[in-house]
C-alpha cells in the first residue's frame, strides 16, 4: 500500500472520536479512587479511633506523604503518556514525597529515645501493611496501565513504574486510615516496600502490556 493510499484511509476515518487523553486521566483517577475506597471499606476499613487520631501530627503526616506521592505521580504519568511532553518538572516533583518522609524520619529519631527506634520501625502491623497496600492498589494499577495503553507513552517501562507509584500513593492513603503504626520510621520502611512492589508490577505491566 502506498503512503498516499494510507492517508486516504486515515482521512476517511477522521470523524472517529476518542476522549482527549487528559480528560480520560481524570476519569481514570476518579474510578481508581472509588475502587480503592470500596476494597478498603469492604476489607479493613478505618481504625476505630480515627477521629481521635486525626488530632495527632504523626497520624496526619502519613496522609501528607501518601497524597503528595499520589499527586506528583499523577502529574508525571500524564506527561509520560503524552508524546513530546516535557517531563523534567514533574520528574523533579517526584522527589517531594521521599524527601518529606526522610525529614520526618530524621525528626522522629531525634524525638524518640534510641531504645524505642526498633519498636517504632517494626510496629505491629507490617504484614497487614505489606498485604493491603498492594491489594487495595492492584485495581487502580490495572486501570492506570490500561490508561497507558490508551495514551502513547514513549517510555513504557518508566510509565508503568510511575503507574505503580500512583496506585501505591492512592492505596496507601486509604491504608493509612486503618494503620495504627503512625511513626515515620514505620512508614519509611514498610509503606516504601509495599509501594515498591506495586511500582515493580507496574514496570512489568509497562514492559509487556503497554504496546502501541
Amino acid at each position, binding site marked *: 500500500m502506498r503512503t*498516499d493510499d494510507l492517508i486516504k484511509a486515515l482521512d476517511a476515518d477522521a470523524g*472517529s472520536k476518542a476522549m482527549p487523553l487528559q480528560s480520560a486521566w481524570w476519569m481514570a483517577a476518579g474510578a481508581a479512587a472509588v475502587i480503592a475506597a470500596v476494597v478498603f471499606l469492604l476489607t479493613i476499613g478505618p481504625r476505630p479511633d480515627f477521629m481521635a487520631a486525626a488530632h495527632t501530627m504523626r497520624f496526619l503526616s502519613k496522609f501528607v506523604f501518601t497524597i503528595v506521592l499520589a499527586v506528583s505521580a499523577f502529574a508525571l504519568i500524564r506527561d509520560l503518556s503524552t508524546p513530546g511532553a516535557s517531563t523534567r518538572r514533574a520528574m523533579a516533583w517526584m522527589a517531594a514525597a521521599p524527601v518529606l518522609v526522610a525529614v520526618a524520619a530524621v525528626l522522629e529519631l531525634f524525638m524518640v529515645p534510641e531504645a524505642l527506634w526498633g519498636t517504632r520501625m517494626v510496629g505491629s502491623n507490617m504484614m497487614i501493611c505489606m498485604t493491603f497496600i498492594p491489594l487495595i492498589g492492584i485495581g487502580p494499577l490495572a486501570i492506570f496501565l490500561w490508561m497507558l495503553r490508551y495514551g502513547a507513552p514513549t517510555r513504557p517501562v518508566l510509565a508503568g513504574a510511575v503507574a505503580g507509584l500512583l496506585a501505591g500513593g492512592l492505596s496507601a492513603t486509604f491504608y493509612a486510615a486503618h494503620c495504627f503504626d503512625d511513626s515515620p520510621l514505620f512508614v519509611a520502611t514498610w509503606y516504601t516496600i509495599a509501594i515498591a512492589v506495586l511500582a515493580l508490577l507496574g514496570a512489568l505491566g509497562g514492559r509487556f502490556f503497554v504496546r*502501541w
Partner: protein
Amino acid sequence: MSGKNEAELSRLMRAAIAGDERAYADFLHRIAALVRGFVRRKIVQGGVDPEDVVQETLLAIHVKRHTWRQDAPVLPWIYAIARFKLIDAFRRRGRRIEIDIDDIAETFAEPETETVSERDINRALDGLSPAQRSVVSAVSVEGRSIGETAARFGISETAVRVSLHRGLAAIAKRFGRE
C-alpha cells in the same frame, strides 16, 4: 521557518479534530513528508525500509491523536511518535539505534518514492477480518469514498465507517505488538 510550520500544522490539526476532513488530509500529507525526511536521515544502513516507518508513524499519529494537547506545540508530539516508531522498527529487526532529538530541526520534507518492496502494512492488512480488509482496501488502494464503498458491498455507511475504524486500529495494534 520551523515556527511558521508549527503554527500552520497546529492550526490544521485543530481544524481536523473539529471535523474538517480537508484540513486533516493536508495535515497528513505534510506530516508524511516531514517524517519521511526525518526517518531517511536516521536510517543510514539498510535493514529498515524508511517508508514502512513513515506509514507506522502516520497510523500511530492517527489512532493516538487524542493524546495531543491542543494548547501544546504539535511538532514535538509528531517527532516523539516518529522517533518511538523508528526505534521500534530497529528493535523488531534486532538492531540498536541512538537518536538525538535535536536533529529534528534540520529535517527537510521529502516526497514519497516508488518502491517495489513488500510493505509491512500489506502484511498487517492480511491479518484483518475479510470484511475489514475489503473496506480498508476499497477506501485506500482503490480510493473509493465511504458512500461508494457502502454501495459496492451493500452495507450501510455506518457499517463502512465502523469496519474502517476497527481495521485501522487493528493494523496499528499489530505494529505495536510485533
